[in-house]
């Protein structure tokens, strides 16, 4: 690579395409980096708590390096476009809440409508291309406050992810994290075997 990828490119490469949701995530990630004075996460210096599983989260993963695998992307399935980004080194966290009307423009509605169609006519393909362009410019050039409410919040970031012992399931023999094991009459079971035999998961 000749030069570092800009944040936007990182996000598009990771997500696969460009869409309004992803761009909203790009704005959050870039703002968080600047506000917290941090770069991309290397080893859990940053934590992202996301309250949605929308496209925006992919931008947060790609740009901030808070990923599912590293354990510093915490998903709360609340269906809210709310993102809290914290820095362990700075002991500082900032919470973003997407304005309810941020994506309420007619162009957004039309974009979603076209996006949900399984096939598009050539005119609609061109229309979608133009809408993406229009929305792209709107999102990337809007003031941050037009898109999000944000505030610094008390630093209450969970501890770093722990690596637990893996033990074999008494039924399938596959390895399972010790803390996720269910102790039953048939031994220490993984959650999937426990579900298969109809037992309670307790997880």
């Amino acid at each position, binding site marked *: 690579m000749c030069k570092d990828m800009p944040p936007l490119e990182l996000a*598009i490469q990771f997500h696969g395409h460009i869409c309004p949701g992803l761009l909203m995530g790009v704005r959050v990630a870039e703002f968080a980096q600047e506000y917290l004075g941090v770069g991309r996460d290397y080893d859990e210096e940053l934590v992202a708590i996301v309250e949605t599983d929308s496209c925006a989260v992919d931008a947060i993963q790609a740009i901030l390096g808070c990923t599912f695998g590293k354990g510093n992307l915490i998903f709360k399935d609340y269906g809210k476009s709310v993102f809290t980004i914290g820095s362990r080194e700075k002991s500082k966290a900032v919470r973003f809440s997407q304005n309810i009307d941020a994506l309420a423009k007619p162009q957004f509605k039309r974009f979603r409508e076209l996006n949900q169609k399984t096939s598009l006519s050539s005119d609609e393909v061109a229309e979608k291309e133009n809408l993406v362009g229009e929305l792209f410019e709107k999102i990337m050039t809007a003031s941050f406050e037009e898109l999000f409410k944000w505030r610094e919040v008390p630093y209450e970031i969970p501890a770093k992810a722990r690596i637990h012992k893996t033990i074999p399931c008494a039924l399938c023999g596959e390895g399972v994290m010790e803390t996720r094991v269910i102790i039953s009459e048939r031994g220490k079971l993984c959650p999937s075997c426990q579900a298969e035999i109809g037992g309670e998961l307790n997880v």
Partner: protein
Amino acid sequence: MCEANVYINREGREEILMEKVDRIIPGEDNNIFLESIFGERKIVQARIREMELVHHRVVLEEVKQEIITPDKEIWLEPETDHGHFHEGEEVRLKVFQGYNMRAEGKPACPELKAFAVVDGEARQIDIAEKEDCGEINLGSEVDGLVQVYVRESGKIDNYAKIVVEVGHHHHRGLQAIGLPLEIIPCDYSHARMGESYEVQVLKEGKPLPGVLVRATFAGTHNRDYPHKLNTNDEGKVKIFLTARGNYLFSVNDGEIRSTYTLMKSF
């Protein structure tokens, strides 16, 4: 009941476009957004012709996208999608003929003249005839910026220009090369998607205000140029780059047409 049925007049014939419309929002470039009480939405290229509010009737008139293709234009594209060449690498460019970055036919290579300009010094270069385009091979250029242009003389004089970056970080200001009608980047840099990019149109070396500049990008699905802007008092226009790959800017004035290719990867 305050919603209306919207009709569209197409070539003298009126047809229903949408029933029970409760929102009509005129936008830019003759776009009209419609939304019905059932949540159906449409954007059409039209203008409002008549509103009969008592009869809950709105009539639109279709505005056809004007595609001006007086003659084909020529443009240059690099034979790389990397955004620049590296020192020691062969710098190959292609010459196309067509419109809106869609090649149509092959350019008349024997009638074209090509030049490479480095630090104000121009040298003529050959154009090889390929199956569907012309090809320029500059060989291995040294680190820096090279401006290449192609001229086609005829009833309309066509010019095509590209700025080729060899190596990295050549952000210095570029000088116009002195074409009768020329598009120059205002601040040459590694232009990228998600950034604004400004160009200036010069006629005989002087800024040309009020002229239409069209801009497009490789792989657009639009039949015509997706961006059309008029130059300001300083002969400048600015667009926001929303697509990957190369962009093409085009301008016509009198009997001269000139294109400029912005070479970029992302």
